[in-house]
């Protein structure tokens, strides 16, 4: 006897490069599920991520699902999955995370820099010392007794080398003291890699994870990321990338910002990295967002996201053949999350160069997510609880995501993307649909259909 679902359905359309699908949302015992119906292929998909199940079903069963029934054959499976159902993750609770904005200056003059980092502003040592003391104590109190520190916010962390080196050494020394209570210190940063061997060696010896911003071969990278004199930076950055990727001390990956001019080249960019650096690392492609300096350069436009998707999937396929894992920060069935970004997890914070506290790594002057400051006279961290509560709500999943197929895989996407009015929701839904279809095709047709670009109709 068929039973009914919890709620009425909601219907959306998802267009992918190869498919046009109607998605129909419903819930059962509080778990979301979607019926995905192709406009051209007869099998439909039932997708219930928190119940950890995906079904490929024939037309008749699909029709009953779309009519509001929950057929016994489906309900039985859902009931069986209840005991192993999963809740989307919240931000990492086991560590305290400190983001540090050391400077608002940079050795490069990237044409798309959101922070327009060319200001001679550096953090003052008393601010940093107070932030470190607070973070060490807070890290020691976490369940994992872990402190994670990343250098972020606006400028290139290594720009003021003496300040950078002092901060790193003090962090390592302070956390290593037996009385600190910190069991584990993680250091990470995104860096432009525009420096020589001595700095490369210091960084590789003291950091756990690095992301090197390298947009592609010279013709791409030098256009996007010239130095302050306007000359190319590729040769120096590629040397750093090679050093870090081959270092046994530090885990490193590459991040490539993709403009309208480079989007078609994404597969070639991965091939170039494989040729230059070999494999065994991650490449993250992120679309250029037209903020900051990008607004002043006509050639710095966001890529068309349908092209980005097509080329991303091609690049991922190429990466798989040469040991490079190609990712993007958009929705992915690899994760089931309640908040997009762990960086926004108060009481963790990022300290800006001027001593203000913010929840977001890129909020260089704490204008958008600020909720406190460091009092350099007393060394105290001062939190504005009311503002902190307000900021916390900004990282919540928007109500408009309620019936979206991608909701548990992107959690509303980056709150700051929403703030600047840039959406990749269609891309997110398309990626999720593509991954679901690929999983089911692997099941029905064999592993040769597992390639991300192999998305022929079922």
């Amino acid at each position, binding site marked *: 006897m068929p039973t009914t679902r919890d709620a009425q359905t909601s219907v959306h359309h998802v267009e992918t490069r190869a498919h046009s699908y109607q998605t129909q949302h419903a819930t059962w015992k509080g778990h979301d599920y979607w019926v995905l119906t192709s406009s051209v292929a007869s099998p439909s998909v039932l997708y219930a991520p928190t119940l950890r199940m995906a079904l490929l079903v024939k037309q008749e069963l699909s029709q009953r699902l779309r009519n509001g029934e929950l057929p016994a054959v489906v309900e039985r499976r859902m009931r069986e999955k209840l005991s192993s159902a999963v809740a989307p993750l919240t931000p990492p609770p086991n560590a305290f995370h400190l983001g540090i904005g050391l400077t608002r200056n940079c050795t490069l003059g990237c044409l798309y820099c959101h922070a327009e980092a060319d200001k001679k502003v550096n953090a003052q040592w008393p601010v940093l010392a107070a932030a470190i003391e607070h973070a060490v104590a807070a890290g020691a109190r976490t369940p994992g007794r872990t402190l994670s520190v990343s250098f972020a916010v606006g400028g290139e962390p290594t720009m003021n080398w003496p300040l950078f080196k002092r901060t790193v050494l003090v962090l390592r020394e302070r956390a290593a003291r037996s009385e600190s209570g910190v069991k584990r210190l993680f250091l990470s940063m995104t860096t432009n890699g525009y420096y020589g061997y001595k700095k490369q060696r210091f960084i590789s010896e003291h950091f756990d994870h690095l992301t090197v911003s390298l947009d592609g071969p010279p013709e791409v990278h030098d256009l996007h990321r010239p130095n302050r004199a306007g000359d190319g930076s590729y040769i120096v950055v590629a040397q750093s990338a090679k050093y870090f990727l081959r270092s046994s001390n530090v885990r490193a990956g590459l991040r490539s910002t993709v403009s309208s001019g480079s989007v078609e080249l994404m597969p070639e960019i991965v091939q170039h990295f494989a040729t230059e650096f070999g494999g065994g690392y991650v490449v993250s492609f992120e679309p250029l967002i037209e903020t900051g300096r990008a607004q002043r350069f006509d050639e710095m436009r966001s890529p068309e996201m349908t092209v980005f998707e097509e080329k991303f999937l091609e690049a991922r396929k190429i990466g798989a053949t040469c040991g490079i894992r190609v990712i993007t920060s958009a929705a992915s069935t690899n994760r089931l999350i309640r908040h*997009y970004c762990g960086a926004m997890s108060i009481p963790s914070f990022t300290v800006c160069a001027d001593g203000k506290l913010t929840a977001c790594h890129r909020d260089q002057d704490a204008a958008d997510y600020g909720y406190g400051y460091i009092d350099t006279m007393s060394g105290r961290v001062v939190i504005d609880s009311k503002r902190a509560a307000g900021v916390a709500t900004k990282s919540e999943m928007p109500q408009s995501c309620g019936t979206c197929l991608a909701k548990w895989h992107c959690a509303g996407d980056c709150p700051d993307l929403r703030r600047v009015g840039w959406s990749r929701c269609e891309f997110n839904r398309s990626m999720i649909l593509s991954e679901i279809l690929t999983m089911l095709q692997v*099941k029905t047709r064999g592993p040769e259909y597992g390639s991300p670009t192999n998305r022929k109709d079922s």
Partner: protein
Amino acid sequence: MGRLQTEKTADPEPNSEESQVIAEVELTFADNSAIGEGDCSCVCINHEMCCGCILQ
């Protein structure tokens, strides 16, 4: 990493409701919420490599 584990489908009776299910996939999501325990040592993007902030 969330990925698939495939399950069954063992020869159902023709024309039965069970025969309407062509394939079934069980999804798995690793509990790698601890920093450094998953793919990522950064908290920026859950369990993936730090994107260096989505806004470049």
